[in-house]
């Protein structure tokens, strides 16, 4: 096997191996643990950088391993995979930094960082999966490795949230598996291929393929938090902030959304899916989710809960983009995969900062926090504007392409729905910004755990990650047309994979 | 030859009869001690007679000696075992049956 084949494995190993070592490290080996964490994260970024370069120069990175005589574990670092891998790896690096600061002095850190690394490994596996089988393997691993993170605090509430999380995701996984095996039975293989493999079956299998699609989407829809399968997500915000950041921005919901992208484009093929009348129902579900999530977000006073409902809404933008038949919709959806990740992780980092520094958990407690924590609040504001789709931010680019896609697909109601959703986003984010900046800060904070020290309004490791991601949010919007923007890469993906 | 067979049959029938008498005694006698009398004496006599009867049928000396050996063993065993049972019954307080003042 050549080096190119091993590269995907190395990417997986760069978090798996440190994770395993960390898991068995004694609690006191802080320095070694940190070193391992960061080395793994940096190594992974380097490897991915190399592959990014390679893919642009027509290299291919494929690893195959026979699990059963005619069933393979396949890792394929194609352009789409790399998009997701890059996002996860970069955000993992930042989240690791953040988590090191966030968990300083708290118990069970070896366990935490062990599962944290497993979780990222699973995400990378999902991203690089070359067939549905491999995808499923890592999709379930993701469930298993996130559960200990959700219940990490060991409180009754955390355990309850963990239970709900499990019930949803395991049931979803089971449904997903049924769909996969059924499809495998029909096709004899479940490889992700341009234009989809299902198309080879022809129309006499329409009914079966429709049911299978339903099963697959239902299975993925749980993690992607499609209404009505979203119930676990608001509960899971009980987890520590870095975990929430990971769940909402990088790992779990994205795995679902990414899976739907793969299903529509590379299993069914967008044209065949359209022929089978699968796209419209999916678009409707996505739209309902977008509106429903936004509406529910309006009523939440708990900051992380409001962000959670926002996630439900925003992730469905991706799915909506996928269902818009045409390149613009595709670009809008896929690029939002990246953009939403960057913006949402900023918001969760900031929420964590407020909670850790000042003890603020509720929106009603945020009055005047902008003066006390200016950097955090600036980052929060940038990301919130991005979420609303304000110009110069990454969110603007996503919305632009989505609306274009809707017009090209001649689905006018989608444009209206997107506009309405944008208004709702504003309705639930602007009050927060108003409280941050325009209401005077109180005499004392609820529970000021970290004192301001000069320029550092909080722990340095808590501050750097949100500032970086906020900057990227702006960068991705402002420099959207340059060669290093997510948009550029997504266009490349769309060109290479979807457009003839 | 016929006489030997006849003698054999007579002894055998007598033996069987004693066995039957033993069983009747076992059924009719009032307590464990009296029943032990029946078994220890009558059955062994029955066995002895049957062995005697069979002695007329043996093909050779060793066979004859062998069944006599068996008889001796059975005799020793049943005599010893009936003592053990009787003693155990007495030990456990099983009172012997008594005739009423007047005859039954």
């Amino acid at each position, binding site marked *: 096997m050549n080096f190119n084949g091993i590269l995907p494995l190395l990417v997986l190993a760069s978090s798996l191996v440190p994770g395993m070592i960390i898991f068995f490290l004694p609690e006191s080996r802080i320095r070694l643990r940190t070193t391992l964490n960061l080395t793994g994260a940096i190594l992974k970024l380097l490897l991915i950088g190399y592959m990014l370069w390679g893919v642009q120069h027509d290299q291919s990175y494929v690893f195959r391993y026979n699990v059963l005589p005619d069933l393979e574990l396949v890792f394929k670092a194609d352009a789409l995979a790399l998009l997701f891998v890059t996002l996860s790896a970069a955000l993992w690096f930042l989240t690791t930094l953040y988590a090191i600061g966030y968990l300083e002095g708290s118990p069970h850190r070896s366990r935490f960082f062990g599962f944290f690394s497993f979780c990222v490994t699973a995400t990378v596996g999902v991203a690089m999966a070359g067939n549905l089988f491999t995808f499923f393997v890592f999709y379930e691993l993701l469930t298993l490795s996130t559960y200990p993170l959700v219940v990490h605090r060991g409180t009754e509430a955390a355990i309850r949230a963990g239970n709900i999380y499990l019930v949803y995701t395991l049931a979803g996984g089971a449904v997903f598996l049924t769909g996969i095996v059924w499809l495998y039975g029909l096709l004899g293989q479940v490889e992700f291929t341009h234009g989809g493999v299902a198309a080879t079956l022809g129309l006499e299998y329409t009914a079966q393929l429709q049911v299978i699609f339903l099963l697959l989407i239902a299975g993925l829809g749980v993690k992607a938090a499609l209404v009505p399968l979203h119930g676990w997500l608001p509960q899971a915000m009980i987890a520590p902030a870095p975990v929430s950041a990971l769940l909402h921005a990088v790992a779990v919901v994205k795995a679902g959304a990414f899976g739907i992208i793969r299903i529509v484009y590379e299993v069914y093929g967008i044209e065949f899916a359209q022929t089978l009348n699968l796209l419209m129902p999916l678009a409707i579900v996505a739209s309902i989710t977008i509106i429903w999530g936004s509406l529910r977000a309006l009523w939440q006073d708990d900051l992380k809960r409001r962000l959670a409902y926002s996630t439900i809404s925003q992730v469905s933008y991706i799915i909506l983009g996928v269902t818009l038949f045409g390149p613009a919709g595709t670009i809008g959806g896929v690029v939002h995969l990246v953009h939403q990740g960057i913006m949402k992780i900023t918001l969760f980092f900031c929420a964590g900062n407020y909670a850790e520094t000042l003890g603020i958990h509720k929106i009603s407690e945020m009055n005047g926090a902008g003066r006390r924590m200016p950097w955090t609040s600036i980052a929060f504001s940038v990301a919130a504007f991005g979420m609303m789709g304000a110009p110069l931010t990454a969110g603007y680019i996503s919305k632009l392409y989505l609306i274009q896609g809707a017009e090209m697909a001649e689905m006018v109601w989608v444009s209206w729905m997107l506009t309405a959703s944008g208004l709702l986003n504003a309705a639930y984010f602007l009050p927060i910004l108003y409280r941050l900046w325009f209401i005077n800060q109180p005499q004392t904070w609820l529970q000021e755990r970290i004192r301001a020290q000069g320029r550092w309004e909080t722990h340095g490791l808590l501050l750097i990650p949100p500032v970086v991601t906020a900057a990227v949010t702006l960068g991705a919007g402002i420099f959207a047309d340059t060669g290093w923007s997510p948009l550029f890469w997504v266009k490349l993906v769309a060109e290479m994979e979807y457009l003839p | 030859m016929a006489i030997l067979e006849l003698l054999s049959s007579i002894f055998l029938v007598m033996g069987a009869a004693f066995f039957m008498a033993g069983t009747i005694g076992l059924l009719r006698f009032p307590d464990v001690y009296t029943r032990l009398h029946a078994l220890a004496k009558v059955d062994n006599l029955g066995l002895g007679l049957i062995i005697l009867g069979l002695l007329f049928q043996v093909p050779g000396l060793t066979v004859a000696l062998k069944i006599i050996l068996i008889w001796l063993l059975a005799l020793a065993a049943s005599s010893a075992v009936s003592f*053990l049972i009787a003693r155990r019954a007495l030990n456990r307080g099983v009172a012997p049956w008594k005739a009423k003042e007047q005859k039954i």
Partner: protein
Amino acid sequence: MRNLLNVLVIVLSAALGLVLIGVILESPSPARVRLSEEVLMQIGASGVTHPVTAVLLNFRGYDTLLEVMVLLLALLGVLAQMGKQKRENPPAGFYLTEPRMQVLLWLARVLVPLMVLVAGYLLWAGGHQPGGAFQAGAVLAAAGVLLNLSGLLPSWMEPAWNLRAGLVSGLLVFLLIAAAVMTTASPGLLLQYPPASAGMLILLVETGLTLSLGLILAGLFLFLSGDAIDEEADK
């Protein structure tokens, strides 16, 4: 509910019985394969003349090997249980002087040597007529029981090394002969006795088995009887 279940069991059993009898009565005669003829044909090579012994110790000697293991296993189970119980034996020599015990004592003194002879006889007889290690072992075990009852042999506690060796001797001899045959006369072949020495080897195996089985069967009684205080002791 429970009664209903009982009735169900009885009805099902009765039905099973009827079907069994039906099948037995309808079984075609003769069977398709005539194994008894095969046994008689091969008996010359088996080392013994009695067909049942030939089957037990040569043709299906493998079964017998395993069967010794079954007995040993039962004994191990018994031993594992025994370890938990408090052992109380009557003081040594108690029975020898107790007048009531004299009858049993003398019965044992007379019968046990005879039983040793009978055991030897059965072992020898197994080669050409019914008998063999198992019967001989049973008689030896009975002798052990009698000795124990009469106070001549104390109940067994945790077995010491020599008793343990005796208990496994049958299986060990069997294994050693199997291994020896397998490494010399018939390389790589399990329990394949060369016809010339089969009789000798079988007698050797049987002797080991007799000893071991006698000890095991007696052990099943003697290990458990340790806390069985005779009434004599409390009178």
